[in-house]
C-alpha cells in the first residue's frame, strides 16, 4: 500500500507541475523563449483568486465562490502575461537570444516585488510581505478521503481533477479548433504560417494567455492544497515546472503533462525511498534538479521528443 500511497502523492504533486509546465512549453514552442516570469504568472494567479475572495466573499467558504475565484485568478494571470508579452518581450523578438532571457529575469523580479509591495496597499487586503492564509473552501478542502486504504487530501484530488479537465480542454483546443491548429502551424514554421494568413502576433498572445490560464488554475490548486501563499512561491514552482517541460520534451504539450507527473513521482519517491541521510525532504529539490541534468545528458530531446526545430 505504501507504494500506491506514494504514487498518489507523487501524481498530485506532479499535476501541479504539469499545469505550470504547459505554459513554458507552449511559449517556448512558438517563440523559443524561456519565460522565466512564468512562475510569477502562477503566483499572480493564486493572488488573483485570493483577491476575488477578499473582495466578494470575505469570511465565507461556500463552494459557490470557487468558480469566481478561478475566473479572477485566470483573469489576472492572463492579463499580466499579455502585458508582459506586449511591453517586454515583443520589442525584443528579433534581438540576440540573451536579451529576452535577461528581460525575463527582470520581469520575474519586477512582478514579485509588485505583489510584495502593493498587494497589501489595497484597502482590506492583508500585507503580502509574509505568507497569507488562503481561504479553505468547503468541499475541496477539509478532512482527507480514504479510498481503499490510500489517503488522499481533498486539495490533491482537486489538483488531479483540474489537470484532467485542463488536459482534455487542451487536447480539444490544440487539435480541434482553428486557433489551436494555427498555433501548431506557427510553432512548426512561423514564416510560412505568416504567409498562410496566420496572424503570428495574435498566436503568440494566445500562447501566453493559454499558459497563463493553466498556471492560474495551478495557483488556485496550490492555495487550496498548501493553505498559505506568498510572493515567492513562483520561483521554485517555475523552476520545477521548467524541469518538467524539459523532461517531457520542450515544445511538446503532451510531454509537459507527462513530464510534470513523472517529476512529481520521482520527487516523492526519492524523498521516501532513498535510504540514509540523503533521503528525506531536505534533499527533494536537489533530486528534482539532478533529474534535469541527467535528462540533458542522456535524452536532451526529452521523454516524448522535443517538437522544436533548433534554430540556435
Amino acid at each position, binding site marked *: 500500500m505504501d507504494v500506491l500511497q506514494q504514487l498518489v502523492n507523487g501524481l498530485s504533486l506532479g499535476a501541479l507541475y504539469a499545469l505550470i509546465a504547459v505554459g513554458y512549453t507552449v511559449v517556448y514552442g512558438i517563440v523559443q523563449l524561456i519565460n522565466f516570469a512564468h512562475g510569477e504568472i502562477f503566483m499572480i494567479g493564486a493572488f488573483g483568486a485570493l483577491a476575488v475572495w477578499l473582495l466578494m466573499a470575505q469570511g465565507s467558504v461556500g463552494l459557490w465562490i470557487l468558480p469566481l475565484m478561478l475566473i479572477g485568478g485566470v483573469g489576472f494571470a492572463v492579463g499580466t502575461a499579455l502585458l508582459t508579452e506586449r511591453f517586454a518581450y515583443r520589442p*525584443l523578438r528579433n534581438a540576440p537570444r540573451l536579451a529576452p532571457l535577461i528581460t525575463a529575469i527582470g520581469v520575474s523580479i519586477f512582478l*514579485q516585488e509588485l505583489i510584495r509591495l502593493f498587494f497589501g496597499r489595497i484597502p482590506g487586503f492583508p500585507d503580502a510581505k509574509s505568507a497569507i492564509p488562503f481561504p479553505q473552501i468547503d468541499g475541496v478542502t477539509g478532512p482527507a478521503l480514504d479510498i481503499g486504504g490510500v489517503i488522499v487530501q481533498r486539495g490533491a484530488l482537486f489538483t488531479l481533477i483540474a489537470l484532467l479537465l485542463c488536459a482534455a480542454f487542451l487536447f480539444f483546443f490544440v487539435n480541434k479548433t482553428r486557433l489551436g491548429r494555427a498555433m501548431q502551424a506557427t510553432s512548426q514554421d512561423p514564416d510560412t504560417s505568416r504567409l498562410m494568413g496566420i496572424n503570428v502576433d495574435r498566436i503568440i498572445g494566445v500562447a501566453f494567455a493559454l499558459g497563463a490560464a493553466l498556471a492560474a488554475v495551478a495557483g488556485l490548486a496550490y492555495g487550496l492544497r498548501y493553505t498559505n501563499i506568498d510572493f515567492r512561491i513562483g520561483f521554485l514552482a517555475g523552476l520545477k515546472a521548467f524541469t518538467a517541460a524539459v523532461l517531457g520534451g520542450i515544445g511538446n504539450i503532451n510531454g509537459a503533462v507527462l513530464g510534470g507527473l513523472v517529476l512529481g513521482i520521482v520527487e516523492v519517491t526519492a524523498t521516501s525511498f532513498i535510504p540514509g541521510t540523503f533521503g528525506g525532504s*531536505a534533499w527533494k529539490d536537489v533530486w528534482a534538479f539532478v533529474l534535469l*541534468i541527467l535528462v540533458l545528458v542522456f535524452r536532451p530531446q526529452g521523454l516524448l521528443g522535443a517538437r522544436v526545430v533548433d534554430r540556435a
Partner: protein
Amino acid sequence: MRRPRIVTPELQERHGNLGRLLAIIGGAVLALSALLPWSYGFDALDGMTLMFYPSPLQIMGLVLGLVVVLGLVCSRRFPVRRGRPVTGWLRGARAAASGALLYVAIILIAIAVELGGLVNVTLGGWVALVGAALAFVGTRLVAPGPRGTLYDAHARNWLELLAVALVMAAALFGLAYALDTDDPGIFVSFLVFVGTVIAALSGLGVTGWLSAVSQRHRSVLILAAFVVAFLFPFTQNGSDANMSIATQVIIFASAAMGLNIVVGLAGLLDLGYIAFLGAGAFMAAVVSRSAFATLDIHPPFVVVVLMSGLVAATLGLIIGTPTLRVSGDYLAIVTLAFGEIFRITMINLDGEAGPDLTHGSNGIPAIPDLQLGGFNFGKAHTLLGIPLGRFSNYYFLLLLVIALIILVFTRLNNSRIGRGWVAIREDEKAAEAMGVNVFGLKLFAFAGGAFLAGVAGSVKAHVDVSVTPDQYVFLQSAFLLAAIVLGGMGTVLGVLVGAALLVLLPEKLRFVSEYRLLLFGLTLIVMMRFRPEGLIANRRRQLEFHEEDEELAERIDDQIQPSELKGATV
C-alpha cells in the same frame, strides 16, 4: 517608435540666432547664479545660503553653465575646416544644457524635500532654473551641428599623457566625493552632474579622443588606473566605513568581471554564478583557522586560493559538460537550478541531513583575519603618516585579485580564444563550420569563469568574517548579471562602473531601499529594451544588438583604429 518632433530643422533655421543668444544668456545666468544663495536653510544639501561663496554643488552648476557658453561661443570662433578633426561644440553645449536643467531641477526638488516646501528656494535657485531652462530651449533651437570627430586628432605626447592623468585624478576625486556624501540629494545631484559632463564630452567628441588616446597609451592608462585605485584609501583618512563599501565594490566587481567572461565574451547566460563564489568562500572557510571550521587542515593562504578556484572550476566542469552541448537556453535554467542545488546542499551539510561540513544555515562564523608572512590584515597600519584600517588592507589585496581577473579578461579577449568566443556568440553554427572548437571553448569559458569566482570567494570569506548559505542566493547572481548589463557586456570599464553603481546606489539612497528590487527589475527590462549594450558599449557588441542600424555601423566603422582591428576592446 518615432518620437514626435517639436523642433523641426526649419524652425532651427529660422530662429537659430535667437536660440544662440538665448542659450548664451541662459548659460551665463546659470553660471552667475552660483554666486547667489539658493536656499534659505543651511541644512539643505551642502548649505547654499551664502552670497558670493558657492558651495561645491553650486560650483558644479557654474561649470555646466560655462560649458554651455563655451560651446556656443567656440562654435562661431572655430568653424569646421576641411581635413581637420571636427569638435562637436554645439552637441556638447546641447548635452550640457539638457543635463544642467535636470541638475538644477533635482537640486531644487531636494531642497524642497529636505526643508519642506519650495518656499525654501531663494531667488538664486530660481535664477539658476530660469538660466538652465533658457539654455535648454536655446540650444534646442540651434541646429546640432556636425558630430565631433576628435578621435582623429593627435596631440603632443605629453599633452595626451596629461589628459590621461587629469581624467584619472578626476575619477579619484569624484569617487572620494561620492563616497563621502551621506545626503541622498547631494549624491543624486552629483551623479547627474557626472553624467552630464560625460554626455557633454561625448558630444564634443572628447570621449572619442580619450578612447583613441587610451588605445595609444594603453600601458600608461592601466598603470595610472591602478595608481589611482591604490591611492584611494589615502583619501579616506582611515575611515573604515567608507573603505568597507569600497571593498564591497571591488569584491562585487571581481565577481562581475569573472561573469563577464562567461556572459560578455562567450555569450553564455550563467544564472548560478554566485554559487561558484560561494563554493570558493566555503572552501576557504572550512580550512580556515576559525574555531568553527570543519576540516582540520590549514594550508597557507596561497594554496587555499588555488584550492578554492579549483573546487569552483570542478563544479563548473560538472555542470557545464552536460549542458553546454545542448542549446544555450538550457544553460540558463540549469545554472539557475545549480545555484539552488548549491544553496540547499550547503544548508543540508549540517550534520543532520548530511555530513557536517558547513554547519547548515548558520554557516561558518568567526573566520580569522588573514596573516601573510608577518602582515596581519586585521590590524590597522600607518603608511606615510596616514592610518589604514582593516578594510584598507583587504582593499589592497582585492586590488591584486581584480587586477588578475582584468588581466585574464583582456588577454583572453585579444587572443585566438577570445575571437573564437565572439564567433560562437554571433553564430554558433557558422563558427563550428569554420573549425572553432565550440564545445571546448564554451567549457573553457564556463570553468574559467568559475575558477576566478572561486578565487574571489576565498578572499571574500576573510573579508566578511562569516560565510553563510543565504549570502549566495539567486538574487545575488541576478545582481551580478545586472552589473554587466547596466555597464556594458564584454567591457572592463563598463562592468566596473556597473558594479560601483549597483553597490553605491542602495548604500547612498536609503530612502528607496524598499523599492530597490522593483527598480532593479525595471532597470533590467528597460535597459534590454532601449540600450541592450549597456552604458559603456563595446562597439562590436553594440553592432550585434543593433543589426539593422546602418548609420551606427558607419559611425563605428569610421572610429575603429587600425590597431584595434585585431580585437574588439574599448
